[in-house]
């Protein structure tokens, strides 16, 4: 029989055992910009990263976070870090779609990677290297910096679970999903974020999506709508990034660079747990005010087909998108055997499991 060794190895260990530290006493003060206002939980994630770095470095690297608009407008975060006006930034990469369409793939893809998927693909399957290559073109060093799980579906005043229900529905959703919904026959308006609440309340639009339950809760969409149409297929996993001006990053002593790397991973881990624990609480609260309805199976399959057509058309148009999506899809395919083999052990409460609901 063939000889079998250990099945894997921690690649970082090879580097770690060779590192010779020259401990530095240099004190570095940085500024971090972001597209988040203080009311959004994303802001707390960015602040968490800054705190982690300060704590781990005993204050030698002090990154001061600035919310949206304090130093630069929300959507100028990327340019500001690229040019070095601020040394650090936090984002949802999809905002930089106009710089390169492929940024969206590192943020969330309709029917694409979920939280687990992003973690494995980014850290183990070369996703992070692709991400760093893309940001690197703009003079930026990037790391995964927050995974917020699945988004909520649409807050709606129209009950829509079947394919026909979405025809003619007036809704607000940005980005790739907007194009997808448009091709499904909905009439989608890219209302600016600040206008969504009023537009939804006054019936200017029928439905809107914003973010995950815990992030949506303070917005009070449940007070002005009747339904939450689930699941949020447009974003199965919200992936954020933390990023740095390359020149500023290169000037850091090696120990601080390791601290940044480890704190980014810690933020990725913490954010997922924190947001999802809050999501569970928020969705219970939503349920008191609105009915949570599920899109039926056939409709989901139709959506999936339309989404594939759309994504294929993007791949044909943008080689960078093709490279990233192909890699993500290859991972999804690779992982399918294991996903199937392990299924049936979903940790439902006892009553739900024994009633026959054994998978997700």
């Amino acid at each position, binding site marked *: 029989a063939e000889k079998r060794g250990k099945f894997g190895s921690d690649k970082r260990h090879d580097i770690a055992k060779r590192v010779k530290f020259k401990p530095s006493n240099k004190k570095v003060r940085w500024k971090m910009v972001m597209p988040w206002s*203080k009311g959004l939980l994303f802001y707390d994630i960015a602040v968490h990263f800054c705190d982690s770095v300060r704590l781990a470095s005993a204050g030698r690297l002090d990154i001061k976070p600035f919310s949206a608009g304090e130093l630069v*407008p929300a959507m100028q975060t990327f*340019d500001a870090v690229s040019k*070095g006006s601020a040394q650090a930034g936090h984002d949802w990469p999809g905002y930089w779609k106009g710089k390169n369409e492929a940024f969206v793939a590192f943020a969330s893809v309709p029917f694409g990677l979920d939280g687990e998927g992003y973690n494995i693909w980014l850290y183990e399957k070369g996703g992070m290297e692709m991400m760093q290559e893309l940001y690197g073109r703009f003079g930026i060093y990037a790391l995964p910096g927050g995974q917020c799980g699945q988004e909520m579906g649409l807050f709606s005043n129209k009950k829509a679970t079947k394919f026909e229900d979405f025809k003619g529905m007036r809704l607000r959703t940005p980005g790739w999903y907007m194009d997808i919904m448009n091709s499904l026959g909905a009439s989608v308006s890219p209302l600016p974020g*600040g*206008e969504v609440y009023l*537009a939804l309340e006054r019936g200017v639009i029928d439905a809107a999506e914003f973010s995950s339950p815990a992030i949506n809760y303070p917005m009070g969409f449940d007070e*002005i709508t009747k339904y939450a149409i689930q699941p949020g297929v447009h974003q199965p996993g919200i992936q954020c990034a933390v990023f740095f001006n390359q020149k500023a990053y290169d000037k850091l002593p090696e120990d601080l660079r390791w601290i940044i790397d480890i704190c980014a991973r810690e933020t990725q881990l913490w954010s997922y747990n924190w947001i999802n624990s809050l999501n569970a609480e928020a969705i219970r609260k939503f349920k008191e005010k609105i009915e949570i309805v599920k899109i039926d199976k056939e409709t989901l399959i139709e959506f999936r087909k339309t989404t594939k057509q759309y994504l294929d058309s993007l791949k044909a148009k943008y080689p960078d998108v093709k490279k990233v999506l192909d890699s993500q899809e290859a991972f999804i395919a690779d992982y399918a055997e294991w996903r199937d083999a392990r299924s049936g052990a979903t940790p439902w409460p006892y009553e739900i499991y024994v009633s026959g609901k054994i998978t997700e």
Partner: protein
Amino acid sequence: MSAEFLTVAMFATLIFAITLGHPLAYTLAAVATLFGLIDNGFDVAGLFDMFVNNCWGLMNNYVLVAIPLFILMAQLLDRSKVSDALFEALYVVLGSVRGGLGLAVVVVCTVFAATTGIIGASVVAMGLLATPALLSKGYQKAMTSGIICAAGTLGILIPPSIMMVVYGGLTGLKETSVGNLFAGAIFPGIILAGLYFLYIFIRCNLNPELGPPISKEEAGKYTASQKWGMTFKSLIPPLALILAVMGTILAGVATPTEAAGLGATGSLVLAFFNKKLNWEVLKQSGFATLKTTSMVMMLFIGGKFFSTVFLSMGGGDVVADALIGSGLNRWLVLFIMMFIVFMMGMFIDWAAILLVTVPIFMPIAMELEFNPLWFSMLMCVNLQTSFLTPPFGYALFYFKGVAPPEYTMMHIYRGIMPFVFLQLIGLTVLCLFPELVTWLPSIFFG
């Protein structure tokens, strides 16, 4: 240099620099540049990349689109002379009361405040229209200037208002969205108008020489029903516009920006019916709109640079620590913030004040758990005084520009004092009864 030192130095430099008479927007940008460079170790590229990013962000700010549209609306309304008819009607209705013409000015200004978002047009229109009538009836000069300046200034408090648009654009909070601010400003606006009305009525009854009634013959030219007929007829155009703007926002047909567009369209229609719609009017309205919009936006740019550098230096934390960290009573902190705004209002214009103070004061107000909408409204009502307080007050300049030469700056300064005092009373009333601000928005927007 410590953040505390830089914070104080930056404000001191600004105060000195603005007295040199260079345009305020450029001065703000220059002071921001100086301190930005000190703060970032003289990294010129880093600073100006940040400034350019900020400019670009302003050019993409959808909320602010309402500004030129509201200004255009005011320009068209002004040129179609719709306020003349209402003043003429009220002249005979209220003229026979002591102080009646003054009361008529307040009513006309209040009604038109609900159709325009700026102040220049109201003060100028009333200055041209009402001053001759008030003068010829023997109204005291100081009183006349006070009435017109104060009532004309209501245009920027009673919604629609570009002050609220700027405020909403600055905070980006749901609580202080432009829609909420508009709804919240309705009662405060009416309260100020009511205070002016009462004050004129009482003062002129105590001392009839301040504002004598028109003669019996003049008042008797029309029958009572004719008078009311004229009044109602002249109220139709402004009411239609109020419906087009506030009506569409509250009924959910349009966002505040779109409502501004509907209002501008409405004023085009009015100009058409008044046979004032021609190429010349369109052109002149367009020129004037550009001039005012760019003036406000240039201040926006300079003010943005200033607040950006100020926050970047840690100035926001310095002010917050000084106000909150020292354990002062929250009401005292509120008073200090209001006092600072009032003092700034003497020297700088409202947009610059908002741009500099809101990013610093809003977080403090939130930290002290003041209702953000209520706090914002206190800021806006407080800023009403900035239009009137000498030496630098827009309303005073606009009025001086159109008033007959016998009005000196001293008449105007003396005349507006009681009205500044009334504004502060109004501010106090809102402090004591927050529901006056928060109730209407809660009805309209849940």
